């Protein structure tokens, strides 16, 4: 039998099945927590850190990623405090610096309130979110791609660098990759990277009416429905 747990996210009383993550529980109640590496029904690895929230334990606040945090009875979560917004903005800024050629990441940055990027652009082709790896491993049970190396050499590769015989050519890795949609004005040339921010006008509304959610509208750029 399903067991239910009561918790509070941003002051809302929430009832969630035992074993769900705070992120999923929040979605169910229409509380938007920005996220990147989370894919519904796949395991969460907490790679992008965009989904951080504040958890209040004994009056002290603790910052963790909501996608890897399971709901507990009486939990108090705050997803939209000044502290979280600041931290999240910085994380988004780092992500744009890492991969400015992803519309998904540019969109997330705009939503998280990034106004300028203070870090040097790296223009990498991958942000190591692990969406492709998890889809390949968990959804299709193929293990045709995975993380290789460690530290700054970590990258995605197939075994021994050649297309694996287990690859089913399903293309799920490509569908899920945030890097496959370039910014509206086309890919940025090296040295010409910038914060796109072209959707910023849409955020005007959210500035005026803080409770107005623009996530879904902007999210279409990342084709959230596609997952």
């Amino acid at each position: 039998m399903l067991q239910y747990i009561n918790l509070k996210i941003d002051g809302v009383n929430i009832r969630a099945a035992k074993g769900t993550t705070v992120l999923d529980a929040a979605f169910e109640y229409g509380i938007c927590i920005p996220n990147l590496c989370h894919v519904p029904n796949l395991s969460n690895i907490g790679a992008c850190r965009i989904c951080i929230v504040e958890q209040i334990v004994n009056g002290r606040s603790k910052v963790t990623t909501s996608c890897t945090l399971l709901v507990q009875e009486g939990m108090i979560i705050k997803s939209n405090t000044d502290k979280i917004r600041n931290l999240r903005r910085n994380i988004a800024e780092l992500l744009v610096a890492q991969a400015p050629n992803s519309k998904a990441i540019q969109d997330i940055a705009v939503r998280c309130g990034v106004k300028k990027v203070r870090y040097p652009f790296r223009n990498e082709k991958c942000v190591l979110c692990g969406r492709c790896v998890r889809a390949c491993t968990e959804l299709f049970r193929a293990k045709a791609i995975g993380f290789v190396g460690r530290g700054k050499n970590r990258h995605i590769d197939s075994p021994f660098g050649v297309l694996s015989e287990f690859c089913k050519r399903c293309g799920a890795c490509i569908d899920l990759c945030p890097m496959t949609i370039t910014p509206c004005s086309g890919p940025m040339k090296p040295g010409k990277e910038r914060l796109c921010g072209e959707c910023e006008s849409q955020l005007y509304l959210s500035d005026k009416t803080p409770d107005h959610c623009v996530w879904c509208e902007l999210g279409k750029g990342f084709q959230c429905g596609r997952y």
Partner: protein
Amino acid sequence: MSLNTMASIIEGRRSQPHQLIEVLQDVQEQQGYISEDSMRVISKDLGVPPMEVFRVASFYKAFSLKPRGKNVITVCMGTACHVRGAKLIINQAVGQLKVQPGEVTEDGLFTIDQVNCLGACALGPVVTENGKCHNHMNSSKLRKLIKSLKNTGTEETAND
């Protein structure tokens, strides 16, 4: 020979995925590096997907996926050694052996490796040669070390 050693390493550990790291360690020790072929054999015999073997083997620094020279000269690039001129030592080594770190010399005798602290900071700059530690390195000591290693190398091959 390599297939025989592979067989003896894997012997008794077939279909035991949790033995992966131990097997990789043994292969590394016996063959000096882990080749693609041995990874494929390991994957088949232990029942671990090739991706998993590759991921683990590429993750740990203790495993080398490229052939290594007979003598591995490890130069410490940690903070203390850096301050005491590890950069010079590694440049010296590169210059004398004419290989980049991580590659093998043409005669197959040497590989230069870097680590970030060997835990003997007071003795810096530290160089280890096949696990043997040499403290307070400088270029003349390094030259002597390489020379002696070269000599033992040729003697051994002469005896063979």
